[in-house]
Each structure stands twice: as C-alpha cells, then as structure tokens.
C-alpha cells in the first residue's frame, strides 16, 4: 500500500478517475461553469505535459511552445473555414468540420512545425536556444496576424462541429470527457517514454551533455525527436482548445502563452508526470478565482507564484514530497577517504 502511494502513476489514475465525475457533480453543486473550467485545465494539462518532455526531462528551455499549440488550433480553424467555403485548402486539401480529420491533421502540422523549428534551433544551446525558439514562435504569431484570409488579428470562428462517433461535441460534458480521455492517453505515453531507453537518453542530455558525448551518444537526433513529440502534443491540445472555444486567434501563439505553459510546468514540478497537470490546474484556477475578485489579479498571482518557486524546490510536486518525507532516507554517509570493505555495510541498505 505504501508503495502504491509512493507511485506517482497511482495518483494520476486516481485524479483522472475523480475528475471524470466533475460533469455529474457540477449541476448538483449548481455551478455549471465548472465543467468549462475543468475542460480548460485538462487541455492546458496536455500542453504543459508536452512541454515537460523537453523542458523537464531533457532540460531544453524552449520559450516558443505556444507556437505548436497555435498551429494545432489553426489547423482546425483553417480546415473548418475551407469546409464552410467549399474551396479546397491550397487547391487540393478539402476542408473538414470533423474532429476525426482535424485532430490528426493538427497533430501532423504541429509535428512538422516542431521538426523544422527544432532542426534549426537545436543547433544552438543555452540562452541562444531560448531566444531562437522565442523568435520562431513570434514569427508564426505575426504570420497569422497578417493572414487576413484567415481572420488576421480577429481570428476565425468555428460554428458547426460535426459529431464524432455519435458524440455531440457541443455538449460541455461530452467534450470534457473526450479531453480527459486524451489526457489519460497522453500521460500514459509520457510515462512510457520517460522510463524507456529514449527517456534515459533525454535525462542524460539534461544532466550532462559532455558525459553523453563520452558515452558515444549523438544527442541531436534524440533532442529533435523529443521536440517533435512535444510539438505534436501541444498541437493536439491546441486543436481541442479551438473545439472548446469554437474560436482560434493569433493570441494562442503569443509569447505570453508560451510563458504560461512554462509557469505551469515549473509550478507543478519539472520532469514529473503529475506536476504539469497540477500546475495547469492551479494556474487556471488561480486566474479564474483572482480575476473574479479584482481586475488587477495578476498583482496577486505574481507573488504567489514567486513564493512557490522560491520555497518549493521542484515545484508543488517537490513540496508535496518534502511534506510527506517521501524521499527515501540515504544510508549513513561514509566519510570520504575511508571506505569500509564491501561486505561491511549494513544489510538494511541492500538493493538489487
């Protein structure tokens, strides 16, 4: 039982199972807005978790992750616009209002976008890498601002979304459950990847590029594949967000959105499975609550985030671990310089 409580995966399963009841409970509590709020949290959780793969696991500070979020959103929006007008996109791609078409299209577009941006920016490192990812995202942002054919600054509205496998996506509860299901699938994938050989290489990239080179690992392609997977996840989240808002605009890829996604990951806990989900939940809920109290809610939000980052190393997940004292106690330190013979160490500390 104790082992189960220690396993982050058990907590994720429990949390997702509880969240599934939100659409049932919300009408009873007479707060219909809750389902919409929960949907936003779930969608941001997917986006934050995708950023966590490169930021948390591989230690790559990408400051342009909203670009893929927005690309996914625009894939849905543009396909819908062509469905409405009847003109094929680029003359040969027919439009669509079905999520079964637009969601895979969004994921594909996000992956291609991340492959191009990643291939170029991963040739740099450090501050240069941060600036170049930001610059690419800003380029895309201004590209969509100037695309008058697709609404420019004003964005695009999506009016009639086709039912998916008999599910009416205009029903708030149905859309929430769909998003929650996709979050569950996404987190399962992230967990497998983090534990796989590929995930071990990403952890190595974060902790010591020099060591990885001495091990004979060419890290570039591993980083690029991680970048593409993360871009696909963010694009999936963006596509869902556009279905939820029934609207897409360049604001989805603004640099402030990239910043928000980073805050979610750092707030929740870098490199953890549950952290980005918690971070998304806390940030969205905080903004919702504070903006109900005062117009200057960011004035209160800032110090709260500052306190978490200053006092909880490893974000909220780190704080929870510290409070629970879950970090396995290290066996008594052996004084440097004098190592007891191999068999003289206490039996209790034996592993593997």
């Amino acid at each position, binding site marked *: 039982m104790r082992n189960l409580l220690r396993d982050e995966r058990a907590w994720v399963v429990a949390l997702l199972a509880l969240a599934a009841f939100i659409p049932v409970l919300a009408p009873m509590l007479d707060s219909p807005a809750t389902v919409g709020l929960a949907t936003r949290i779930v969608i941001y959780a997917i986006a934050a978790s995708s950023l966590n793969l490169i930021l948390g696991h591989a230690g790559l500070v990408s400051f342009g992750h909203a670009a893929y979020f927005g690309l996914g959103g625009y894939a849905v929006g543009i396909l819908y616009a062509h469905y409405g007008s009847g003109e094929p996109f680029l003359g040969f791609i027919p439009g669509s209002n079905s999520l079964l078409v637009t969601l895979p299209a969004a994921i594909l577009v996000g992956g291609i976008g991340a492959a191009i941006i990643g291939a170029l920016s991963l040739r740099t490192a450090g501050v240069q890498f941060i600036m170049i990812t930001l610059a690419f995202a800003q380029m895309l942002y201004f590209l969509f601002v100037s695309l008058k054919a697709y609404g420019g600054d004003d964005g695009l509205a999506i009016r009639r979304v086709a039912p998916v496998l008999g599910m009416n996506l205009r029903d708030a509860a149905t859309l929430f459950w769909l998003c929650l299901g996709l979050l569950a699938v996404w987190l399962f994938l992230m967990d497998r990847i983090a534990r796989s050989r*590929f995930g071990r*290489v990403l952890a*190595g990239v974060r902790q010591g590029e020099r060591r990885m080179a*001495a091990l004979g*690992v060419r890290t570039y392609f591993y980083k690029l594949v991680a970048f593409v997977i993360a871009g696909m996840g963010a694009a999936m989240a963006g596509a869902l967000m556009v279905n939820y808002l029934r609207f897409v605009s360049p604001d989805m890829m603004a640099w402030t959105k990239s910043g928000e996604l980073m805050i979610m990951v750092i707030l929740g806990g870098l490199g953890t499975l549950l952290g980005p989900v918690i971070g998304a939940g806390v940030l969205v809920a905080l903004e919702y609550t504070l903006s109900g109290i005062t117009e200057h809610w960011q004035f209160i939000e800032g110090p709260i985030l500052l306190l978490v980052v200053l006092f909880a190393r490893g974000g909220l997940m780190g704080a929870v671990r510290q409070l629970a004292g879950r970090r396995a106690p290290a066996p008594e330190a052996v*004084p*440097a*310089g004098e190592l*007891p013979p191999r068999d003289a160490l*206490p039996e209790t500390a034996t592993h593997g």
Partner: protein
Amino acid sequence: MAEAPVLSVQHLVKRFGGLTATDDLNLEVLPGELHALIGPNGAGKTTAIGQIMGEIAPDRGRIIFMGEDVTRLSAPARVARGLARTFQITQLLEDDTAESNVALAVQARAGHSFRFWRDASRDARLLEPARAALEEVGLPRARWALPVADLSHGERKQLELAVALASRPRMLLLDEPMAGLGASESLRMTEVLRRLKGRIPMLLVEHDMDAVFSLADRLSVLVYGHCIACGAPEAIRHDPQVRAAYLTEEDAV
C-alpha cells in the same frame, strides 16, 4: 615492438592563443600495455586526452587508433570504435542512481536508443552488464541504488571507471583516477587497475607516483606539452633529464 600499436599519436600540436599546450607530442600505446603519462601540473596531459578522445581538435598531427586515422572523427565516432575515457572531475548524471549511470553506458554501446516503450530500469540486457561493471570496480552493492549526488568522492571515482568499462572499450583513457582519494582508496583503485591490466590497453594520467610506478609498463614524461622521455619505470626513474625537469621538483615541494 613487433606488435602494431593500439594507439599512435604523431606530431600532435595544440595551441591556445600564445600557449602551446601540446608541442609535437609523439606517443604509442601497445596492445595490453598500461602506459602512464606523467608530468608537472600544466604539462598538457588532460589536453592530450581530450584530443585523443576527439573533444578538442588538434592544430596539427595525427591520431591513429587500431590502425585507422581518427584525427578528424567526432568523439561519438571514436567511442563507437572502442575508445572510452574517465574524467578527472567526475562527469556523472547526478540525479540518477549509480546503477542507472552504468546502465546508460551499456545502452549507448548497444546501438540506437530510439526505443520508447520498454522500461529501461527493468531491462536485464542493460542491468546485467551494468552490475558486472560495478562488481569489477568494487563499488559496494549497497551503494548501487543511491543517487550519484549521495555518493562519496571515492565512490564517484569508482563509478566513473565502471561507466567507462561498461562501454566495452578496446582502450581506456584514464584522467587521474586517484585524484583526491585517501590512501586506502588509492590502493584499492590501484588493485582494480592491476586486475584490468593486460586485458584492456590503458593510457593513465596520474600524479600518484607510487601507483604509477607500480602499475605502468612504460611511462611518457610530458613537460610543456612535449614528451621529454619515454621508457620503462626503472629507466625513467634514473633519467637525468626527467629528474631535473620533474621528479626533483616534486621532491622539493
């Protein structure tokens, strides 16, 4: 000397601005040989290792490994051909356990890592060779599951060697494996290297003269990036040039 050398460094030159760190360096390591590279601080020993490994590009000269000119190859390409090194300042993955540090080296040697599904921490194909390497360097079993950050300096030095061994090298470059170790730890490391000797050719950079003279088949003495003498330990010990340039200086301190 009929055997072809494993490693042959020929007329190697490296300049950093006005400083000549490697000055026309010639060096040969024979099959099964433990070749020690000694010299005062700043003689360019670590720079030489960096160039042999492919981390630093030399300005001139050639590096031949296993009969192949590797001078222009990247570090990962040289690792693929069987070179491995340890670092004077340990380069380990601090958050990971000792065992998974070594397992990653096994994994890197096993081919590409574009495997996304299986749990690497339960993969016997990685763990068994990793545990064998940990046994080989004598890191106590009780320390294997600890994060590197919780290990002592001596244990990290042992782990550094285990990581290098796990890549099944055809030659080892050891950059001061005894640096900072206590007397008994140094002796234990010397014993580990003695067991490896003969099986894997080694180039050993080390300041611990007791260890060097008891282990080495041959020594090269480096002063200001230039090899001033090369030979068996006894010959080096009595070489007047070496005594003048290096050993006496050491004694005087």
